[in-house]
């Protein structure tokens, strides 16, 4: 008797659970999609047109055009079509002439004088001047050719001047940074995202994990090919790391191997050879046991069916 009533009660409870379970499932699916769909909103493409809604909401929203672009002295059509007056930063220059042969081919970002940024961002600018990107720019000027990864970037290549957002969280900045650096350093971005650092930092939003600039420095952009420099970067989190710690390969992709140092090259070759071997081993072992179990199951089922009916 006693057990009977208990059974009925549990049955009733399970029945009441159905709608709850359903609602739970729906909620889970919705939550999942909300997570899955939360993408990174990078700044829109910079064009001739400035989106005033986004500009006003950006960190530079309070600046007037002239503060960066200088006063377009010849601001009447007749003038800006004509000759420039009194060239010089912020003193006044003429608007580029849309009818001139070169105007439509000019790379705006190569052409803009980013010293304007220095007015407010002094430290960042001075760091940038010491860094790899500035070195590359200087090299580019002397040789006249861009490097393999493309033109050496100036401020505007990484930062959207019109739509740059302020007060972003660490992981928001990091996510945008990963995309931005990845435009030129595609292979480094991929290997970073395949590494624990990238997975925890970018994918899971873990603030303690390192983003690009945490190792390579913001604006300084160190290449970290030198062991001591690299170790300094590691020491920021791994405080008791020995010098050999810098031998661990973070960007372990095999693309463009020749650009890497010899030690890394040979290390990477080993890593990938062993990786392929391990993969083959895993597949072989699993294939054998899956076949074994599958066939055994079929045979046993067959015999059971035979026995029963």
């Amino acid at each position, binding site marked *: 008797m006693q057990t009977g009533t208990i059974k009925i009660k549990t049955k009733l409870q399970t029945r009441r659970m159905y709608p709850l379970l359903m609602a739970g499932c729906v909620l889970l699916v919705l*939550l*999942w*999609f909300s*997570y*899955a*769909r939360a993408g990174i909103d990078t700044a829109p493409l910079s064009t001739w047109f400035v989106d005033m809604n986004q500009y006003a909401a950006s960190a530079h929203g309070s600046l007037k055009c002239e503060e960066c672009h200088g006063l377009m002295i010849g601001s009447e059509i007749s003038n800006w079509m004509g000759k420039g007056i009194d060239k010089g930063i912020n003193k006044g220059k003429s608007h580029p002439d849309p009818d001139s042969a070169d105007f439509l081919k000019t790379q705006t970002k190569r052409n803009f004088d980013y010293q304007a940024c220095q007015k407010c961002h002094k430290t960042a600018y001075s760091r940038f001047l010491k860094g790899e990107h500035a070195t590359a720019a200087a090299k580019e000027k002397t040789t006249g050719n861009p490097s393999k990864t493309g033109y050496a970037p100036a401020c505007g290549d990484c930062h959207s001047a019109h739509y740059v957002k302020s007060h972003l969280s660490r992981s928001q900045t990091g996510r945008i940074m990963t995309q931005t650096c990845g435009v030129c350093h595609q292979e480094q971005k991929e290997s970073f*995202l395949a590494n*624990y650092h990238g*997975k*925890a930092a970018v*994918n*899971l*939003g*873990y603030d*303690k*994990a390192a983003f690009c600039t945490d190792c390579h420095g913001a604006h300084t952009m160190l290449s970290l090919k030198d062991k001591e420099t690299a170790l300094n970067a590691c020491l920021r989190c*791994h405080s*008791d*790391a*020995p010098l*050999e*710690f*810098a*031998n*661990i*390969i973070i960007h*372990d992709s095999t693309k463009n191997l020749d650009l890497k140092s010899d*030690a890394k090259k040979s*290390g*990477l070759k*080993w*890593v990938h050879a*062993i*990786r392929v071997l*391990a*993969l083959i*081993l*895993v597949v072989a*072992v*699993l294939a054998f*046991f*899956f076949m*074994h*179990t599958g*066939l*055994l*199951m079929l*045979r*046993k*089922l067959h*015999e*059971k069916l035979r026995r029963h009916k």
Partner: protein
Amino acid sequence: METNVKPQETFQRFHILHRILHIVIIFNFTFLAITGFLLHFSGFGLAKFLVSLMGGAGAAGWLHRFCAVFLYMGILAHIFWLFYYKFVLKQKFSGPDSILPGKKDIKDLYQNLRYVFNKGTPPLFDRFSYLQKHDYWAEMLGMQSMGLTGLMMWYPEFFAGIFPGFFINIAGYFHFYEAVLAVLYIGVVHMSDTHLVPDIFPMEKSIFTGKIEKARFMEDHPEEWKRQQMIKD
């Protein structure tokens, strides 16, 4: 409903320590697999969602290490028991009851393959079949290498001083591939070989209760049954 069926005669098969250890392994293995794969496949929306439910990547990482230590303590407990078994109880590791692989296992495998292709009868197993032995050794040895590679990634500062730097990278890949192997092996092969066998389905309980029914004993471990009957006589 009244049950007129008499409960079957049962025999002790697993020691209480092993039963507890098995539960420890189940619990920790599951959480290790979940948290580990959540990090590796963190690019998927579902993974992000589940990690956030766990309290973020830090908490998931902590859980992963906690379970690893817990699981390894279980394995250490088993190793201590082995010493106890050998030196205090003065028992032997070899013999038909042994979990050590032997010649009979290769013969059994061959015979089982013949049976699968309808060319003979199934082999007669002793206390442990070759698959059970394989399960045991895969777990015992696998956990050692998972533990080592895991430690290498847990304390890279220490291990980078001992090994060349790229060993840490290799450890990462090994850790992942072995995890895939373990999860697919346990999830598919071990599960179906124990629970899905038609006569046992839906569930094999002997590792939890420690007892095996007479019929199953005679069917699954006929050699051991025969030996026990001979000792009795």
